[in-house]
């Protein structure tokens, strides 16, 4: 039995790839928060980031690999779990499982769809709402591009909904990864659970603030 077909091995792959994606979500939020400093903040940040060249591409490929592993084994494990419980109970009362823990595969699928949309919009810049241009200092104007797209209420709603989905996924996922790696016991579990929920709330509020503040006109040039 190989690591990739082993029940625990697969969960460890899910946990490690999930951990790197959580770290990415933290770094991405810190980077994005430069938008609160106005066009100068985020445009300078974007220029500096793209100036890193091969490092950016290495990171992108690495994150793509992590996403691929997480999605692949998420689907494989879930399909196996469904077939391990062929007959459902007529009455089933959950004692500990939450809405978040029971919907991981679905929140995961929604997040995958969101990642594809988000990349098409602001990385490949091919969606119809995207406005391209340079700022006064000749840098690519990330602020104006983002602000232009977030003038549309439906786009803002998609983003906020995606962040609620991320909140659900991570409010179970973060504590779950510590358990799957085996880095857990009865004393640490409540701490990881709290940590996971706090981080999930921070991501929800932090990420949602950008489109909401731009749409409402509170955040302007």
């Amino acid at each position: 039995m190989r690591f990739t077909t082993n029940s625990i091995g697969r969960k460890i792959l899910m946990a490690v790839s999930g951990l790197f994606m959580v770290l990415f979500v933290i770094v991405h939020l810190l980077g994005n928060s430069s938008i609160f400093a106005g066009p100068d903040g985020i445009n300078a940040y974007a220029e500096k980031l793209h100036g890193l060249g091969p490092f950016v591409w290495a990171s992108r490929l690495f994150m793509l690999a992590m996403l691929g592993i997480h999605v692949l084994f998420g689907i494989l494990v879930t399909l196996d779990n469904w077939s391990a419980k062929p007959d459902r109970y007529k009455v089933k009362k959950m004692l500990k499982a939450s809405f978040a823990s029971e919907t991981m595969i679905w929140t995961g699928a929604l997040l995958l769809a969101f990642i594809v949309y988000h990349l098409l919009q602001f990385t490949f810049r091919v969606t119809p709402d995207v406005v391209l241009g340079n700022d006064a200092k000749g840098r690519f104007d990330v602020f104006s591009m983002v602000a232009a797209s977030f003038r549309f209420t439906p786009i803002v709603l998609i983003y906020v909904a995606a962040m609620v989905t991320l909140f659900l996924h991570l409010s179970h996922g973060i504590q779950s990864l510590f358990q799957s790696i085996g880095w857990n016991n009865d004393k640490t579990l409540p701490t990881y659970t709290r940590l996971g929920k706090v981080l999930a709330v921070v991501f929800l509020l932090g990420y949602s603030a950008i489109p909401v503040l731009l749409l409402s006109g509170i955040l302007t040039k």
Partner: protein
Amino acid sequence: MSAQTAEHGTMTLKLIVWRQAGPGKQGRFETYTAKNITPHHSFLEMLDVVNEELILEGKEPIAFDHDCREGICGMCSQVVNGVPHGGQERTTVCQLHMRKFKDGDTIYIEPWRARAFPILKDLVVDRGALDKLIQEGGYISARTGGVPDANATPISKADADYSMDAAECIGCGACVAACPNGAAMLFTGAKVAQLASLPQGQVEAPVRVADMIQAMQECGFGNCSNHYECQAACPKGIDVKFIARLNREFLKALFKSKAGSHVFAGE
């Protein structure tokens, strides 16, 4: 919860019970009325009363597993109103008493449901898969002979307590029944942790964890999603920290040269 008893201090209940003639047969829910049930009846005694009546009527009694009826053997196995063992904390269904129910209640009774536990008849399932897991690694290979001297092998109080907590498992399978994935992680984790925390069990620890995980999958158990339903349903309150220990023991085994290749290659 206080028992409201009707005339003569007895209650009447509506039971909706899974009936299945045999393995692989089509099952269905049947409705029965349980009469003359006192608050002092245990849940299984309540079923005895119903069965006696069914026998007098010339009908097939409801088959269910039971043995010690004092909460230690792990034979009784019924999902009562959607919870294995009926939902009273740290209580097997044989120790669940009818004082927890009210006159006129409707009670759903189902067997453990999981791919690894095929139904044999009515509420009786085949839990041989748990025996298979034990055969694959839930033991130590010790020399037989005279009884060793007390404290010949020093074990700290903390390790002894930890190991005993894991050893409290009675092997009833409620963890598998409660798990949305039909996984046996809590059962296996408890056994792996119990033996890995003692010097006698450490020799075979890496091989044990590899073999038991493989056996879990061969028996058709699912994977862990960390819902922790198992711990909540366990009549002995086995902690999910033992599942974390199982995962940790698996990782440790990977780094042992011989056992590591065993983990990777299987046989």
